[in-house]
């Protein structure tokens, strides 16, 4: 059941979106987020939605998978929507005892929900179409200039790729331990929230033990292959900036420019 958490899991494929350079996709996400937060009117939002739909179509990621990715954040979305709905002043629409729902509040809540959902879709498209290795590699290259001011860029990206590498392993491990405890009658599914949280406690001990064991093994394996940091390391898969990356980048910038332009006219 934990396996259903697809949070940012890579979906192997061979679409144009998969083949774009990781650096290009990272920059595009930044541009996309900028456009999303600049958009103000209906036309602006419409443009961003259109761009998102186009990207999903190009990436050939099944929309179902995207919606499943949204599931874990439903709580956050609902929470923001409710807050915005009740705590925005303006023309009152409905009065429910002490709280009033205003027209402005409703619009704002709707816009907020749309924004969060688009934000998640955009970032998930990145992680769905980019393997964790390409992703951290791209980040390392983008942040490379920071090395000049002694930021340990390589070490940070190494840590990140390891973390990404071990998330599925840890989820699998948790699943196994849960199964073993369920086989002896542990109950994770019924009872109130407190009881359920308490049932989770015995999971942590074997999980930490195995995580530390793994970390230890990995450190030994790396050391015995003479790993010594980023200097002079070469890569098996080189990132190459191609014409299609430039085109994608230009399209992204065009979207941002259009949204900024529309905002000026309040659209």
């Amino acid at each position, binding site marked *: 059941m934990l396996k259903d958490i697809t949070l940012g899991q890579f979906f192997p494929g061979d679409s144009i979106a998969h083949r774009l350079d990781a650096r290009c996709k990272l920059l595009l996400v930044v541009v996309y987020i900028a456009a999303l937060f600049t958009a103000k009117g209906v036309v602006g939002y419409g443009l961003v939605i259109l761009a998102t739909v186009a990207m999903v179509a190009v990436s050939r990621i099944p929309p179902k998978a995207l919606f499943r990715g949204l599931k874990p954040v439903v709580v956050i979305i609902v929470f923001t929507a409710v807050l915005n709905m009740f705590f925005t002043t303006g023309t009152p629409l409905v009065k429910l005892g002490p709280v009033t729902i205003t027209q402005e509040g409703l619009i704002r809540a709707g816009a907020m929900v749309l924004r969060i959902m688009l934000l998640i879709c955009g970032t998930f498209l990145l992680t769905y179409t980019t393997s964790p290795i390409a992703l951290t590699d791209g980040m390392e290259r983008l942040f490379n200039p920071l090395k000049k001011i002694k930021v340990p860029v390589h070490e940070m990206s190494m840590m990140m790729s390891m973390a990404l590498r071990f998330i599925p392993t840890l989820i699998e491990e948790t699943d196994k*331990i849960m*199964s073993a405890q369920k*086989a*002896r009658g542990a109950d994770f599914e019924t009872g109130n929230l407190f009881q359920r949280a308490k049932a989770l406690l015995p999971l942590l001990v074997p999980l930490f033990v195995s995580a530390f064991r793994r970390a230890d093994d990995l450190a030994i394996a790396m050391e015995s292959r003479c790993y010594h940091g980023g200097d002079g390391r070469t890569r098996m898969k080189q990132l190459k900036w191609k014409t299609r990356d430039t085109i994608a980048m230009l399209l992204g910038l065009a979207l941002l420019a259009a949204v900024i332009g529309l905002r000026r006219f309040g659209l």
Partner: protein
Amino acid sequence: MTPIVRAEALRHVYSAGTPFEKVAIDGIDLSLTAGQLVGVIGHTGSGKSTFIQHLNGLLKPTSGAVYFEEQDIHRSKEATRDVRFSVGLVFQYPEYQLFEETVYKDIAFGPKNMKLSESEVDARVKEAAHFVGLPDELMELSPLELSGGQKRRIAIAGVIAMRPKVLILDEPTAGLDPGGCRDILQNILDYRSETGSAVLIVTHNMDDAARIADRLVVFNHGHIAFDGTPEAVFSHTKELMDIGLDVPQSARIAQALRERGVALPDSIYTPDQLFAAVQALRKGAGAC
């Protein structure tokens, strides 16, 4: 005899609807009767572990059903949980799943979940520990301080303490030294003879399977390829080898001899049978 556990047309698909979709088992029909000792063999990834996790309701079949004492185990959440006390499952490498502070508490986890009285829990823990040969001095130690073989025994004791009517073990002897293997297999045989429970063992060791099982089930790519007495199953030496499985050493030798033109019967899988067959052959040769 009515079966105690029965699986019907079981099919399980992992990660359905994603690019990682994988049909792990398909069309599995199998029943166990009390007192039976069934060996399950099959190559890596053939669906053995997936199958046995259906028998105590840890996995829900994509289609098909599992019955315990002729009742569907998924008829309600409570029923599923209760079945787990009757169908005890020891996982692959269970030693990584111990979690309590002391050996005693770990073995007591199952009986406590059964809501037994404290004295009953105590009696069961002691009995189970004794059964697998864990000395009393270990009971108050942390399971993490013990050796791999001891941990494995603690895990088995933790399941035996629930006194399941069906005991399922996933590769209980993997990675143990020959002495440790023998002890654990002997414990399992004793458990069956003392309680009359049904036992199902997944194993990669054909000699063990040939020696202890009354019935063998062979998995191949999520289907059951053979199901019968060890004698019947191991008479398919060639087919078994073709699907990448091993056969007991004696069966392998007999097959090698057959390929060199020695006329041996099909049903050889223990050293004694091989010896007898070869002797019979020599007598026959001497006669003419």
